[in-house]
């Protein structure tokens, strides 16, 4: 038994970490593992990561080797003595003169004067004299935008604060649900039981956190890129109210055992979900009218994605909730379509639209290629719409649907590559920008996960990988890579870009750093444990072992998931606090002009 576990570990590590072991059986029922496209692709993705690490390691190593290869000291001394003996007096004088010149030192007062320093054009935004061992490197500060209508700021702030509330609430529930895998008897309360809380977690983070922050950021983008006012503030508030009402009612329903039927992400019964749909119809109208009243000729690409996503999610919800074709397996066909499109056609599309605005804006340069964005838009629409059934591979759902889903899952490489290329090329040459900013790292991580997460998802649809990974915790890892690694990170990047600009108040950089690292490390612990555990689980099933063994073997991975989840949850509290500080704190910290401060330090320096 011991050896079989070791064996499986070995196999899993082969799958997950690149190593060279070509001796695997030929002609076994599925053929060589290495000929499985899904496996090959997953390994290639890992190779990309490994290659990056390797480049870094080689650069480091090269430096060390360089130092080691300097000539021997003795040899150096001999050459030196020989050279000195052959010098003429002129040359010696020159050298002495040079030596004196080189030992010249500034007194430190050359640039000083008795005048007070002035900053007439307001170029100095921040001065610090405390140079003693800062905990983290200081990042660049953000300057306030020109004029933004206060009414718009209030509306966006309300969206973002609602979103932050649902993030903290939804992930606290998710965290608690994760704990239940480790301690199933932690409570015996009906409305806190796993089955009821799980959809509360998914629905609140989907419709509450992601959707509301997307819409809030979108309100800014649509007005800016249309160079006009928002069509109607009142409609904006109405939409926000309806969506929040939907979430409160939906959460209460689910906890009381009123579940629409358990189809993932449509657990809210229709009267509750109708509030959300109406909210979105109102938002679409509001966005569309704003675009229609634009003061420039062309629609910016962001508006394509946002208007598209809003119209798609409305059509999607209506199709998902209409009952006429949902008896028997009809329900399953719709469920596959709905749960995938919900992610791809709403969250992913809308968020991409936001990135097409906020990434160029924070890098202060245009997007690399407008046309690639257009290509990605149409291919996303064509391919993504067709792949929902890949959640039901090998099920009794008609095989042609499954085949179409698998084929177009592979087709998804096109929009993903187009999008990634566009973002990476926009980033190119701005590495310094990223390291000196507190918002850009979020966008960079989001783009990295956009590529790896999407491609990994496509590979999971392949038949062999599906056999190993379907039904296991690997799926849970994938959904967290996408909804968290991609969507949440990109949204955070956008929020940290936008809010300091229109509020003129920045978050504390140390706290943004804590948010970033806790979220990232937590996510990594989460997905790595679920991927390894999920693979082991799938292999255990393939081996025909008793089911309970696959439960037992998951125990340590569920503990690691809980640890990762704890870090993630902590980071959300920090994020909520940062948002509170930027949006609500009454005494704006950086509002006060920095010039008097500069003068003070000048005097301090003088007297020292």
């Amino acid at each position, binding site marked *: 038994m011991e050896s079989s576990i070791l064996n499986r570990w070995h196999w899993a590590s082969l799958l997950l970490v690149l190593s060279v072991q070509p001796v695997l059986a030929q002609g076994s029922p599925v053929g060589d593992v290495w000929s499985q496209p899904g496996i090959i692709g997953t390994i290639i993705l890992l190779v990309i990561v490994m290659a990056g690490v390797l480049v870094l390691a080689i650069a480091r190593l090269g430096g060390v080797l360089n130092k080691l290869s300097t000539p021997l000291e003795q040899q150096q001394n001999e050459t030196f003595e020989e050279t000195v003996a052959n010098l003429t007096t002129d040359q010696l004088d020159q050298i002495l003169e040079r030596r004196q010149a080189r030992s010249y030192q500034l007194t430190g007062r050359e640039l000083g004067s008795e005048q007070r320093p002035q900053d007439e054009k307001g170029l100095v935004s921040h001065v610090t004299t405390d140079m003693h061992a800062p905990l983290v490197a200081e990042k660049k500060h953000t300057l306030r935008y020109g004029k933004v209508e206060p009414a718009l700021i209030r509306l966006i702030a309300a969206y973002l604060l609602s979103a932050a509330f649902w993030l903290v609430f939804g992930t606290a529930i998710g965290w608690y649900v994760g704990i239940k895998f480790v301690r199933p008897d932690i409570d015996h309360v009906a409305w806190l039981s796993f089955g009821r809380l799980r959809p509360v977690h998914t629905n609140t983070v989907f419709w509450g956190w992601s959707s509301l922050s997307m819409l809030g950021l979108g309100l800014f983008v649509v007005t800016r890129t249309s160079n006009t006012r928002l069509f109607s503030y009142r409609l904006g508030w109405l939409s926000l109210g309806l969506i929040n009402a939907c979430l409160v009612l939906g959460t209460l329903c689910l906890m009381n055992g009123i579940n629409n039927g358990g189809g993932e992400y449509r657990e809210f019964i229709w009267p509750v979900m109708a509030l959300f749909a109406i909210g979105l119809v109102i938002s679409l109208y509001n966005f569309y009218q704003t675009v229609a009243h634009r003061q420039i000729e062309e629609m910016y690409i962001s508006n394509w994605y946002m208007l598209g996503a809003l*119209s798609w999610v409305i059509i999607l919800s209506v199709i998902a909730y209409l009952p006429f074709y949902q008896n028997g397996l009809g329900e399953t066909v719709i469920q596959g379509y709905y749960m995938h499109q919900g992610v791809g056609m709403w969250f992913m599309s809308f968020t991409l639209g936001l990135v097409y605005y906020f990434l160029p804006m924070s890098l202060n340069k245009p997007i690399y290629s407008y046309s690639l964005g257009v290509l990605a838009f149409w291919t996303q629409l064509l391919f993504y719409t067709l792949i929902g059934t890949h959640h039901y591979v090998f099920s009794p759902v008609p095989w042609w649907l499954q085949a179409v889903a698998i084929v177009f899952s592979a087709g998804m490489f096109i929009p993903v590559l187009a999008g990634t290329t566009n973002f990476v090329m926009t980033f190119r040459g701005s590495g310094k920008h990223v390291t000196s900013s507190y918002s850009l790292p979020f966008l960079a991580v989001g783009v990295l996960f956009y590529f790896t997460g999407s491609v990994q998802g496509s590979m999971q649809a392949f038949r062999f990988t599906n056999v190993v990974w379907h039904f296991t915790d690997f799926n849970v890892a994938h959904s967290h890579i996408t909804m968290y690694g991609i969507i949440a990170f990109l949204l955070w990047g956008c929020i940290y870009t936008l809010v300091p600009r229109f509020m003129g108040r920045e978050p504390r950089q140390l706290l943004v750093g804590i948010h970033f690292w806790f979220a990232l490390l937590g996510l990594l612990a989460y997905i790595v444990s679920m991927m390894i555990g999920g693979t082991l689980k799938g292999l255990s099933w393939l081996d025909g072992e008793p089911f309970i063994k696959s439960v037992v073997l998951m125990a340590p991975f569920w503990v690691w998931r809980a640890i990762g989840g704890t870090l993630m949850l902590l980071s959300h509290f920090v994020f909520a606090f940062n948002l509170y500080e930027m949006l609500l704190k009454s005494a704006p910290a950086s509002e006060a002009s920095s010039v008097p401060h500069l003068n003070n330090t000048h005097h301090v320096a003088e007297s020292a």
Partner: protein
Amino acid sequence: MWLNLHKNHRLFLGLAAGVFLLLSTLIAVMPAFSVQNNNAPLPDASPTNAEIQNGLDVFVSENCMACHTQQVRNIDMDKTWGGRPGIPADYARNARLDNLRATPSVLGTERTGPDLTELGERQPSEDWHYLHLFNPRSVVKESIMPAYPWLFTTQSTVGSYDKELNVPAEFRQGITGHIVPTERARQLVAYLLSLKQVDLPDGQSPAFLEYKKPKPAAGSGTASGEAVLDGAALYAQHCQACHQAGGEGLKGAFPPLKGSPIVNDANAEMLVRIVLQGYDARAEYAVMPPFAQKLSDAEIAAIATHERSAWSNRAEKVTPELVRQIRAAIETETTQ
């Protein structure tokens, strides 16, 4: 230029929404209509009733679908969960619960717990289900399923129609009265017991696809060419949920195998017969299902051998040949 999508927002939105609507109709709505309409329950499917329907209601309320699938895929590894791959007809009866709630999504997408397609056949004992729902760990030590104590009530006296639970002391949570299932628990269990795969009319079934874990280089297998069956693993899979890992059973629910005279009898015929035919002769214990259709002679022999040598039991091996003879004997008895 009205054709310019960058400038004509009306055309743009119409096109984006129109293409999506068209594709959605082709990929989702029309196939959904088609599988809904070209479908009917299998002729042998047993009729449903109000109690089972109400049980499904409880099943959905507690969102059991979050962890339990009900689909036997057409791949090898799913043979554990059913005798044949699922077909659309298996789900033909699945319909909207009421005006508020949609068709339950019973196929599921995650198998945190076992598949339930054949639960009624695999675990036909009501008592087991009640204990398991009250606290899963009272029957399956390693289980992580939630406990559902709110489906039970405590009474000071037990009527003749009440079904009292023999909950082991450590799981009673200080309850001193008699623990009996509520109506909702009875409905839920009725639903769970109704979960069975229906045989196809012609006895034929779609084949399972072979997807097996690739084995490292051939030649390292057993010399005999036939794998030796692991009786302990088979026991864990088919018997342990009731008779427990240590063979001690559960008082008042499932008889112990450890030290059992039937298990330790020099003549294993009675033991093998019970495994093949099932057993329901003793009122104080729950019903045991028959395994004749589910396990091969070699598998039953391996399990019986394990039971006769594990724990403190000491008895002779059981050969597949013996199981084959007893199976044949039973067949002639029943056809006569």
